[in-house]
Structures are given as structure tokens and as C-alpha cells.
């Protein structure tokens, strides 16, 4: 008799235990999987398999390193260039490796300095857009009450061509590297946020997240551990594509005279200066054009390759 009662008590106690929240401990949570699978390792392995993407990445890294080398080995320092019309339009030779421009300044130092400016601008802008876009996208997709609010902001900004905002900003605020960076980020996070939001909405109510929530996982942890990995491939793709986009936008604005200030040479400004002369002096176009195209195409292709590699669906 007594034994039976005890058993019953135990059963009930067990039941209560079954339906109460387990105390959260990160070690225990990680213990479930026993496979050797590591996400980043697989990404890396998949990426390495694509020879073209690896070659392109190496080209880009070499190019960036070379911009620094090129500036230091050049015979003229960018900061001390003096206009001298008697030396205008000298074709590339041993003294002026890329020739001289229309007012007789060494083109080599200008081209490499401008490449550095453009690369710096596009990487800062790309990362900035990415961080803001992901953060806003996560909130936008996860918090249903805010959906209407963010959607109307999105529509409002997106309904007007982005180049208009950029032009208005350069009219009202001014032209400089910082202004350009901030305004490109301020109007560029939308696409990223929208992509992230759509993906979050797809994943937020899937069973595994329901289970996580039922087990009492904090929202922040669900976002970071469950949903974020699903987004990585899209985020990387957007990041890589935003670099050619930024370079294109910068060169367009600089060409229109609404980009960076005249004293900050960028590839856009060099191309604008070359516009009037390159039919007669093609080297003025070729050097900046080849560099800017290499950077853009490289990122475009690396981005596509890396996003395939980062997609968990393509992992074995």
C-alpha cells in the first residue's frame, strides 16, 4: 500500500517536472548535435572548390595591396602634384607611367590614390548598409506590430529614385567623403532590410522556432542563433553587390559634379575629367576604367559564388 502511494506521488512529481521550463544553460543546449558539421567550415570548403572565385578574391586582395605599393613607388606624390600645362597629355613613358592629364599632372599617382578612395568608400558604405539593414530587417520581420510602420517608410523612400536624394543632399548639405558615406548608407539600407525582413517572416513561425519559443528561448537568442544563420547567404550577396553599386553611384554623382568634392579624387572624378579628352587620349580612360571594372566585376562574381557557398541548402 505504502509503496503504491509513493509511486503515485513520484509519477505526479515527474509530470510536474516534465511541464516546467528547464533552466537555460548554454552548454546543455549545444550538446544535442554530435556530427562533425561546422557551418563556416562547409562554407569555406564550398568556396574553395570554385576556382574562379578564389582567383578573383586573390586578384582583389593583390589590387588593394598594390594601391599602397603603387603610391609609394610612384615618382610623384599625389599631395604635391602641381598643374603644369606645358606637360599636358604626355603619353605613358618611363617618367610618367600612366602619362599626364590635361593640366600636366602625373596620372599614375592620381589613379591609384583615387582607387583607394573608391575602395574605402564602397567598403565602408557596404558594411554600414549591411549592419543597419540587417538590424532593421530583423526587427521589421520579427515584430509584427512594426511591419506597417517600416513598410510605409520603405515605400516613402523607395518611391523616389535614390539618385534624387543624393543630389538633394549634395545641394543642401554639401559635398565631402563623410557626407557621401552617411547619405549612401542612409538611403541604401532599404534593399537589405527588405530582403532580411522577407526571410525572417518565412522563418519566424516555422516549427523549430515555435519549439524554441515554447522551451523559453529568449527572443534575442532565437534571432541570433536560429534565424540569423538562414540569412547569411543573402547578407553576403547583398554586401558584395552593394560594392559595385556604390562605385557606380559614386562615379555617376561625381560625374554630374554632385559627388565627392573636387579635392578628393575618386575614380568617378577621374572619369569625368577624362570625358572631354579620352577620344584623343584613350589612356586617360583605360587606366581608371580597367581598375574600377576589375573591382566591380570581382565583387559581383565573388558575391555570387560566396552566397552559393554560404547557403546551407548547398551543404552536404
Amino acid at each position, binding site marked *: 500500500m505504502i509503496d503504491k502511494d509513493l509511486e503515485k506521488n513520484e509519477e505526479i512529481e515527474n509530470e510536474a517536472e516534465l511541464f516546467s521550463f528547464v533552466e537555460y544553460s548554454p552548454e546543455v543546449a549545444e550538446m544535442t548535435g554530435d556530427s562533425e558539421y561546422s557551418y563556416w567550415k562547409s562554407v569555406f570548403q564550398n568556396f574553395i572548390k570554385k576556382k574562379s572565385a578564389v582567383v578573383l578574391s586573390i586578384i582583389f586582395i593583390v589590387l588593394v595591396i598594390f594601391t599602397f605599393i603603387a603610391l609609394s613607388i610612384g615618382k610623384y606624390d599625389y599631395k604635391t602634384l602641381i598643374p603644369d600645362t606645358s606637360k599636358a597629355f604626355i603619353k605613358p613613358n618611363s617618367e610618367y607611367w600612366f602619362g599626364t592629364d590635361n593640366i600636366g599632372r602625373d596620372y599614375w599617382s592620381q589613379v591609384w590614390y583615387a582607387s583607394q578612395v573608391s575602395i574605402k568608400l564602397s567598403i565602408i558604405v557596404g558594411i554600414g548598409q549591411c549592419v543597419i539593414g540587417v538590424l532593421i530587417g530583423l526587427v521589421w520581420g520579427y515584430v509584427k506590430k512594426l511591419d506597417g510602420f517600416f513598410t510605409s517608410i520603405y515605400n516613402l523612400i523607395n518611391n*523616389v529614385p535614390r539618385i534624387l536624394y543624393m543630389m538633394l543632399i549634395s545641394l543642401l548639405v554639401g559635398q565631402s567623403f563623410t557626407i557621401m558615406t552617411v547619405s549612401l548608407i542612409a538611403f541604401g539600407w532599404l534593399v537589405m532590410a*527588405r530582403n532580411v525582413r522577407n526571410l525572417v517572416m518565412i522563418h519566424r513561425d516555422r516549427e523549430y522556432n515555435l519549439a524554441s519559443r515554447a522551451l523559453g528561448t529568449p527572443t534575442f537568442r532565437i534571432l541570433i542563433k536560429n534565424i540569423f544563420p538562414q540569412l547569411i547567404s543573402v547578407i553576403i550577396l547583398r554586401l558584395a553587390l552593394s560594392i559595385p553599386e556604390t562605385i557606380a553611384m559614386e*562615379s555617376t554623382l561625381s560625374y554630374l559634379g554632385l559627388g565627392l568634392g573636387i579635392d578628393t579624387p575618386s575614380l568617378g572624378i577621374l*572619369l569625368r575629367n577624362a570625358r572631354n579628352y579620352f577620344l584623343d587620349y584613350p589612356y586617360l580612360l583605360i587606366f581608371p576604367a580597367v581598375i574600377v571594372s576589375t573591382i566591380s566585376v570581382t565583387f559581383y562574381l565573388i558575391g555570387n559564388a560566396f552566397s552559393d557557398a554560404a547557403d546551407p541548402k548547398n551543404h552536404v
Partner: protein
Amino acid sequence: MFKYTGKRLLQGLVTVLIVVTIVFLLMRMLPTDYYFTEDQLMKFTEEQKNEQLLAAGLLDPIPTQLIRYYGQILRFDFGESKRIQNGVPVVKIIEDKFGISLKMGLISVVISVVVGIAMGVAQARHKDGIIDHIGTGYIVFANAVPPLVSYSLILIFGSRVLKFPSMYSSRNVGPSSVLPIVCLSIGSIAWWALWMRRYMVDETNKDYIKLAKIKGMSEKEIMRKEVLRNAFVPLAQYLPMSILTTIGGSILVERFFSVPGMGPLLTDAINKYDVNVVQTVVILYAVLSIIGIFLGDLLMIAVDPRITLTDKGGTEE
């Protein structure tokens, strides 16, 4: 359907209102000197300037000015240009300019849609073949290389090898429009081809295509009757947008070839601080793109009866 249309139109109207307000307020941040033509600035004393401003109501509190501006817009009165063309009404300036942009733009839209779709279809039919690879190469080129560079290449090739004029000229409209139109088209051809290929490949993997094959339909018939039509549906919504935005012209192409269209108007106005012109052109761009998106959604419903926008109220993306 009507309820939905009405709601969307209302939303569009609110967006336009917000854009108008923002642009107006931004423009009021500029110094009042920009309300005078350059001649007036030189001749007028401070008192005369103030008198003029007072008479034009430009010293009133901002809300009063804003409401007056709404009223002006309703009467289709966008003020006068002060800097670009002395005292000419803005509407008149735009009337003169938009024809050129529209003509070039429409030709380029037709070329892009026809060539782009043909390219996408060819790529999808010969997937992983040589044509597909060439097409993909072109798409990468058009998307990744900054437009300024690809325009320059077209300019060199077109003017040196093919002997087309390197600048637009109103005396020689035909030949001198060729290069700008090619430049307008390269990007959008790539766009249409990319998506057409993607959607066609998606469609060909679907079950109903397998059924059609089993039924014994020929490959050509399947492509034309089934795949092409279904693949075009998601693209249809972008058609009105691309047609309407041609009115605004391409800022870069027109500047690059000195085409006297709508594109350079805005940059000129901005560089010379022509407040009324900037305001009007920005509003015009916004209105055009809002109408474009709206018509696109309507067109999508029209071509595909399965799509309803009413229940969820959003376009598919």
C-alpha cells in the same frame, strides 16, 4: 477590386503629399537670395529684396507658405524658373524638354524588352550551352561595370569604329541619337534577360510542363504557349514603370551625350540653385514612379487572373 484600387490611389496621394512637403521644407532651408535672378541680385538693395520677398509671400511663416504651395500645385502652377531660364514658367521648360527624353526612352524600352526577352528565352532554351554563357557574361558586364565606364567604351567604339556622332545635336537627330539609345538600353536589356531566363528555367521544372511533354506537345509549342507566358507574368509589373520613367530621362546618359532633355535639367537646376525647378522636377519624378508601380500591379492582375492583391495588399517580391 475597386476598393483596392481606391485604397492604393489614396496611399499614393498621401506619399506624394509627404514628398511635396519634404521637398518644399528642404528648399526653404536655402538662403532667400536664390529666389532672385542673377540680374536682380546685382541691382537690388537689401530693402528692395525684402520688399519683393514680402510681396511674394516668401517671408510668411512656413506653414502658411506650405498651404499656399499646396494650392498652387492644385492649380498646376509651379512657379517660374529664376536661374536656368529667366522668368519662364517651370511647366513651360519641362514641356520643351520632356519630348526628347520620352522619344529616346520609348525607343530604348522597346529595344530592351524585345532584345532582353529574346536573349533570356534563348539562354533558357540552351541552358548551360554557349549562348547561355555568352548571355551570362553580358549580364555580368552590364550589371557590374559602372555605367560611366561602359558608356565611355560605347562612345569610343561607336564614334571611332562606327563613325556615329559623339554628341547629340538637334540638327542631326537620327544618327546622333543612336549612341545615347544604345547606352540607355544596355543595362535594361541585361535586366530583362536575367529575369526572363530565371523565370523560364523555374517554369520548365514545374509539373505541368512535364505533363505537356507527356501529352506530346512539341518543345517549341511548350515554350511559346506555356513557359513564355507564365514566365512573363512576374515581369509584366515592371513594364509601366520603365515606360513612365523614360519621361524623366536618364540623368547620366543625357549629360554624357549632351542631350537637352529632362535629365540635365535637374542637375543644372541643382547646380544653379533654381528652387522652383528642383521642386517641380523632384515631385514629377516621385509622381511618375508612384503611378508606375501602381499601374504595374494592375497590369499584373490583368495578365494573370490567379493573382489577387486584395487579401494581403502587397505585391509579390
